[in-house]
């Protein structure tokens, strides 16, 4: 396994060593796949979209100017491709995308008998699955991909302030659900 940086791999691919592109695919496939699954809520479709994204990225590699990290540039492709796919499927995403003034409310469909087991961790992870598209994307990039808010704002082409608001609102919504479902005792 070659131990190259993203830039070195890209330079090598640009020089004609196309097989080195596999290194980039291996590096980002699972992280990008996680983002897509959280956005599209369908693993098969996500894999198909991810293939398109890697093909698009390869084709546009010549346009990559190294002004940002490859990961940020690639996530922008992934995020935009997922949005295009969603709009093509005519899902009602407008309400989620239009404004941050929208009220974020997570309706817990968690079975109360299950909740009685006081497994807060499991409960939180169930709630994460219910986060709206934009919120799920920010959470995924921030926590799973360890991207900074600046990088996320660049990838999602949204202002830094908006990204922070989304991040805080997501946490607050999850926290409120924990309090509402009496997990406080377990945590104290």
């Amino acid at each position: 396994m070659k131990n190259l940086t993203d830039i070195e791999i890209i330079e090598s691919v640009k020089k004609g060593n196309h097989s080195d592109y596999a290194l980039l695919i291996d590096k980002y496939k699972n992280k990008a796949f996680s983002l897509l699954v959280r956005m599209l809520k369908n693993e098969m479709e996500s894999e198909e979209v991810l293939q398109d994204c890697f093909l698009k990225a390869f084709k546009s590699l010549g346009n990559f100017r190294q002004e940002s990290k490859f990961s940020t540039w690639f996530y922008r492709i992934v995020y935009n491709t997922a949005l295009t796919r969603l709009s093509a499927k005519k899902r009602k995403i407008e309400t989620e995308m239009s404004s941050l003034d929208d009220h974020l409310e997570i309706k817990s469909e968690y079975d109360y008998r299950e909740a009685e087991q006081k497994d807060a961790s499991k409960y939180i992870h169930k709630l994460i699955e219910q986060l709206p598209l934009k919120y799920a994307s920010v959470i995924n990039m921030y926590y799973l991909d360890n991207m900074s808010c600046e990088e996320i704002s660049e990838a999602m082409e949204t202002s830094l302030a908006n990204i922070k608001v989304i991040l805080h609102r997501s946490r607050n919504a999850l926290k409120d659900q924990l309090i509402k479902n009496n997990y406080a005792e377990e945590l104290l």
Partner: protein
Amino acid sequence: MIELSDEILNNYIDDELDQYKLSEVREQFKNSESDRLRLAMLQRVHRELGKLESFEVSGNFTSIIMSKLQKKSKVVRKDRFFMVSISSIFFIILLAVMGYLFIMSFNNAGGSTQNVPDINNYFSIITNVSSSIKGLMTPKNISIIGSILSFCIIITGYLFFENQRQAKRNLSKLP
């Protein structure tokens, strides 16, 4: 006593408070059990989000993309070869026509293909070539040449699109 908003709690977790605000918030935690609880909840959420699980693509994902890329680059090479071949054929035809006109003009100027022409003959050769081209450019000849070229372009276009369609069919056969 200050009121700790969710915003402040989030900034506390993200370590984005200045020193003054930080000491104020810490003081507040000492005095308020409900704020401590809210912070504990938020920290728990933060920790759990940090444990977010990654989904995994199928095992042969990388090889599928690489084979698609390989197919695509083959198609690009094939297209390039096709375009170069067609251009070469046109170029050769053009050269042949120019060569023929040149030889004809050279003979008309009184030169011989066996002897090296005198430098003075070049002017008359060039004049003859241009007059031969002018002679060719009659309305009738232009329409004939135009028809031939149009026919060639149509055939080339058909072959090119057929080639593209075949390449797309091959790509779609991939898993």
